[in-house]
């Protein structure tokens, strides 16, 4: 019964998203693009290259979780279709679960693109297959707090304010946390701040 509803929710969410290439193509390609601009330049520098790839992998997953899943909460509150969904019988959690699953699916694709580029362009070599799997798991765990942060932000402010505000929060976090360049390359003052950001911890973990 629950599974029946969940599959119906998933079908609905995926149809809506997949039929909007304007949404998912940039979402999926953006981290890979940034990586090939900035991250892959560090190719062949051993651990630094691996760090860059891991950092952009975190960035890919965080971005999808934070924006596409979290911040859209602000838009949903005003959405008459979502209001109607709430009035249907059945589990109220299933639509959420479906959206989490869809977000994981999209971020996984974005992530795999970064990893594939890392292997192809950056020549990143990780110890073994296990290391790759570990990376994927860790980055997805990192997506969870980011998603929750996005949801919190989306719940607090209006739909119009949510995206600009999200940029204001997320982009500095990404920069300070060294998701775009290794913290060693950041200016000293910025590097000092960097230690305190959650995104830094995520990158290090990855």
């Amino acid at each position, binding site marked *: *019964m629950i599974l029946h509803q969940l599959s*119906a929710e998933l079908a609905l969410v995926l149809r809506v998203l997949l039929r909007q290439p304007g949404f998912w193509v940039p979402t999926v390609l953006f981290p890979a693009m940034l990586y090939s601009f900035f991250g892959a330049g560090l190719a062949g520098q051993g651990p630094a290259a691996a760090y860059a790839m891991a950092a952009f992998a975190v960035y890919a997953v965080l971005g999808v979780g934070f924006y596409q899943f979290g911040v859209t909460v602000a838009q949903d509150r005003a*959405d008459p*279709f979502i209001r*109607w969904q*709430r*009035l*249907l*019988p059945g589990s109220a959690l299933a639509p959420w679960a479906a959206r989490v699953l869809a977000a994981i699916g999209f971020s996984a694709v974005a992530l795999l693109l970064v990893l594939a580029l890392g292997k192809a362009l950056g020549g990143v070599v990780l110890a073994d297959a296990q290391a790759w799997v570990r990376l994927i798991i860790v980055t997805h765990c990192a997506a969870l707090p980011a998603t929750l942060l996005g949801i919190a932000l989306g719940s607090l402010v209006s739909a119009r304010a949510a995206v600009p505000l999200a940029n204001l929060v997320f982009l500095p976090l990404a920069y300070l946390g060294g998701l775009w360049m290794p913290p060693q390359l950041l200016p000293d003052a910025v590097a000092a701040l960097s230690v305190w950001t959650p995104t830094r911890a995520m990158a290090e973990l990855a």
Partner: protein
Amino acid sequence: MRQMTEQAVEAHDISKRFGAVTAVDGLSLTLEPGTALGLLGPNGAGKSTALAMLTGLRAPDTGAVRIFGHRPTSAKARARMGVTPQAAGFPGQLTPRELLHYAQARRGGRAPFDDVVTAFGLGPLLDRRLAGFSGGEVRRLALALAFLGRPGLVFLDEPTAGLDIAAQEAFALTARAFVNDGGALIMTSHYWAEIEAICDRITMIDKGRKVLEGSLADIRARMQARLFRFTLPEGKAPPDWLPARQQGSHWAAETTDSDSMLRRMVGEGLGFHDLTVEPLGLSDIIARMSRKDVP
């Protein structure tokens, strides 16, 4: 209180404030199965807020709502009610078939949808994306989604806005058949003709308060007003005692004692033609009642 759980809807003294504005102020209403209730009122009267509280979208600040004896947010209440989504909100990437399948799955997968597809003429539209739909087509889908699975109670917000005449008639037929089968229906509408065609009772609210309530039959009987329409020979005007106003080639006069007025018109040899006598339309009655501030 116990026997009242049989009511499809029971709202007791519900209120909702938004900041300094009291959108709904101590509204009570009940709706028994097999009845259609029209919720009327000018824009901003509190109809939408009232509907949101009845359906469980908003919690009332005071008072309580029961749907078939259950809290409106409970699974038991949700399983027995159908609501029209606001037409503006459908994701344009989906088709009616996909949305009907989805709503069906939410209702436990047992609700066949052929009947609502037929009733609202959705057959040829089933597999087209909603992005290209006209307002009327979207509205028909919204109605189909509310009636899907024959719930015990449907909430319809402005059900026929944007519908053409044929679709309005089809809707009225479906709605009446639903009510005659024991369904309970609440609708808001600006179209008096439609309220008269579908509803058994009306509740009129203004500034969040109930200003008028009753069965349509009661309201008409209370007024007992009739509208006379007739023509007079060229150059003739009605006598002073007859409160008639000219409407194109016709004269129109309202009266609460149609028998005496007709006797006098005949007795004085008024020479009228083409006389019709009709009960007043609901809109005329309401206009008169609210002018007199009838509670």
